[in-house]
């Protein structure tokens, strides 16, 4: 199936991720814009943990690290009680509105899972059309096939108690910043 052109891929991603109950914002990728967007997204969080990135330039993260409440080197107990985690997303999947978290670097798996709020930074060019592209040995898939991945679609949820409830063991809120 031919993937739609890049701009409509981003639009589709935004629509579908929003339908999956994620909050999605498109922002410019300058350190100042990213820092401001993270500040807005984590408003109300007293403590936050920022995991390092693989693809997003270090200076982008550096600017955000000076936000109030950021724990520079969290202890394990601070990890378990922080209010928000900020991570890079390895990829986005437009058709399903998912982001993909690549595990490995210290803190990233924890920062995308343990806190009530997860803020993910997704470079727009890393959005693919459908999930299986991350299982094909071409393009971004080549790298994906070597990584431990978590496809994340909206906040954690359950319908086991009757109605749909968002926020179970994983994050209650997912905020995606698409970097253009």
């Amino acid at each position: 199936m031919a993937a739609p052109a890049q701009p409509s891929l981003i639009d589709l991603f935004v629509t579908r991720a929003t339908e999956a109950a994620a909050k999605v914002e498109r922002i410019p990728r300058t350190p100042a814009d990213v820092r401001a967007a993270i500040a807005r997204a984590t408003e109300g969080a007293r403590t936050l943990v920022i995991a390092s990135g693989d693809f997003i330039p270090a200076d982008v993260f550096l600017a955000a690290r000076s936000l109030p409440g950021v724990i520079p080197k969290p202890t394990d107990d601070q990890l378990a009680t922080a209010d928000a985690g900020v991570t890079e997303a390895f990829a986005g999947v437009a058709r399903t509105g998912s982001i993909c978290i690549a595990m490995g670097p210290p803190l990233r798996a924890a920062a995308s899972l343990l806190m009530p709020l997860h803020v993910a930074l997704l470079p727009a060019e890393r959005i693919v059309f459908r999930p299986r592209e991350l299982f094909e040995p071409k393009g971004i898939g080549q790298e994906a096939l070597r990584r431990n991945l978590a496809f994340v679609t909206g906040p954690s949820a359950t319908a086991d108690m009757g109605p749909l409830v968002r926020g179970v063991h994983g994050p209650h809120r997912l905020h995606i910043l698409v970097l253009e």
Partner: protein
Amino acid sequence: MASAGTSSGPYETPRAVANKSDKRTLVRAIRMALGMESVAVRRNTQNFNRNRYRVAAEVVDYDALKDEARAIKERSINGLPDLLLTLEKAVRARGGQFYLASTAADACRYILGVCQAHNAKLVVKGKSITSEEIRLNHTLEGAGIEVAESDLAEFILQVADEQPSHIVAPALHYTTERIAALFKRKFSTDAKLETGEELTKFARERLREKFLHADVGITGANLIAAETGTIMLVESEGNIRMSCLLPPVHISIAGVEKVIPTREDIGPFIELLALSATGQRLSSYTSIISPPLDDPLFALSGRPRPAKREREFHLVLIDNGRMKMRQDPVLHETLYCIRCSACMNSCANFQTVGGHAFGGETYSGGIGGAWEAGTGTLENARFSDLCTGCSRCVNNCPVRIDIPWLNEVLRDRLNRASAGSPLASLLGLASMVRGDDRRASAQKIFFANYHWYAEWGARTAGFTNRMARSPLARRVMQALVGLDSRRALPPFPLRTLVRAAREAPAPARARVFPGPAAKAVLFADVYTNYGPAERGLATLKVLRALGADVVVSDSVPEGRAALSQGMIATARKHARRAAKLLTPYLDEGRDVIVVEPSALAMFRRDNNHVLVGNERFDLLRTRSFEAVEYVVRLLARSERTARDFFDVSRSPVGRRLFYHSHCQQKTLGCAGPTEALLREIGFDVATSSVECCGMAGSFGYKKEYYDLSMAVGADLFSQVQAAEQPAAAGGARALVASGTSCTEQLQAGLGRPVLHPIELLAAILIV
């Protein structure tokens, strides 16, 4: 609605009726489920079902994905021994441990050993139905290890001490109110526990503590790639990700059938699994990991910092009968199952009672019988009698397993394993079926040979029809062959279709086509010939008006009735006879027209199994058509429109219709054309969204299933009533249905006459 709503409790516990190796327990379980669980099961399964149809429609290559997934599973199960060797090497190369357990006990022993080696006090577990199969909790708890079920559904079941009622949402039989009552009874807490939010928060807080202190995390695995030791884990709550990440030891358990060759092969499955399961585009979390994870270990909440910051990983694969299933000529298909639950969500009976009635001690629903038989004993599969063979699951299975066929084979084996019924011998029933089919119950033999009674009944129709209304006669029939006396029996016609058609002179054929005339034979199926024969006559009238040269065949059973009772040898005999009868017509270039959709299903689908390698089957399959489907084909060949032939203003029942298509007809793809044609002619058509009316051939006539059948029908009846509201918008709609048994069910539930669409078409012909 039947006795379901009025039966008084107390009901039995689901555990007490989990083992349904005898049929009486199955009947008790149905009663329990209708009384206690039906409301929640209906809402949740129908929700999954609706969402699946909606999301599947978005995936343009859905059918191609299913073919791809099927091919990967065929390849994997075929080459399983080699894949297991490859996988073992891959897991060990990454620093993990690999264990292939031959039995449930063997698996439990190994897992207990790992826990004890780490001096584990607390284990957190993600949802794993396979762990239910091997009764893992029983072993661990017996050794003094606390097991915290972290999936909220499994948490509920652990608190309630119940078995799963569904393979994806194991507690979907619970309403919020019942969970609140359960928690209040079992936990001494002041917490306010009423809403879903409050209950979730309560469970989350208890379980977060467990996660932070757990010594071992146990998860299942949805798929395992042999080449890299990669596992796929699908969930929505985040508990499985935590089980992999937080404790220092991760054990993943799965049946051997979960292994596929490569990580690339996961591609089609990630597209299909969540869609088929809950109707989501993707579940909240799908982890693709090659454990042990290389993220460093945490030392949370005062737990001593581990000496090595590395995780230990054990992959425990379970045979427990699967390698034997692999050799089984039929059951091996079960191993293709990816446990998505689409078969149960699209099953009308399952939607009504759930897996505590339509299920065994671990597995439930359409595919559940084969799993229970394969991992336990054949007798454990007796609950699969609730599969009516309606075939609605067939197109929804992402790996294209013919689940009704598996259940027909299980039924056949159960028949053969039984001692045989002295009653059936006494009644002379046993002499009518082939070989070991004689061991089946009198009820099954009776329904399998309906054609025989029908033929004799129709010869003396006046007398038989009076008898069918006599309460005494009905009581005798109920006692002898289990035909429920509350069911009205369809009257035998005074003249059968075959007789009526041959006595009437064939009218001159209309000339409406430019080319040569379409030639067809109307197969006088048993249900139409000895039942509403006027439908067959209407078919002749309409097809002839459209210029077709149509003759009528003799009436013979096509095998569907015998097949549905699990009498495969008898079904094969019938199928061969029908194929032999129709071959000369096919040789003359005639298409085969069928009024009753279940007979058509035999020609198009089921013969695939019972007439294997028979060349007549292929001809029949490709050249047989449902009556209205054929009308649509003829219209497409003419250069005129439907309105040139049919005038809606002549309709004897007005323009407003409620059309219910037959389950087999839907699966065969000939429900849509009928609806479209009726609309094109100018009818205002409301349709049902139910998968099946609940009668399902003989099912609803059986005394032990009458209540369930009527409870299933309640959905259809209420949809009709809803479509007739508000009265200001036109009110009543004429009932139209394509199946003989659907007609009986609609009449039973609504007390109104039902037309077949072909009768309606015959009535509004412009000639």
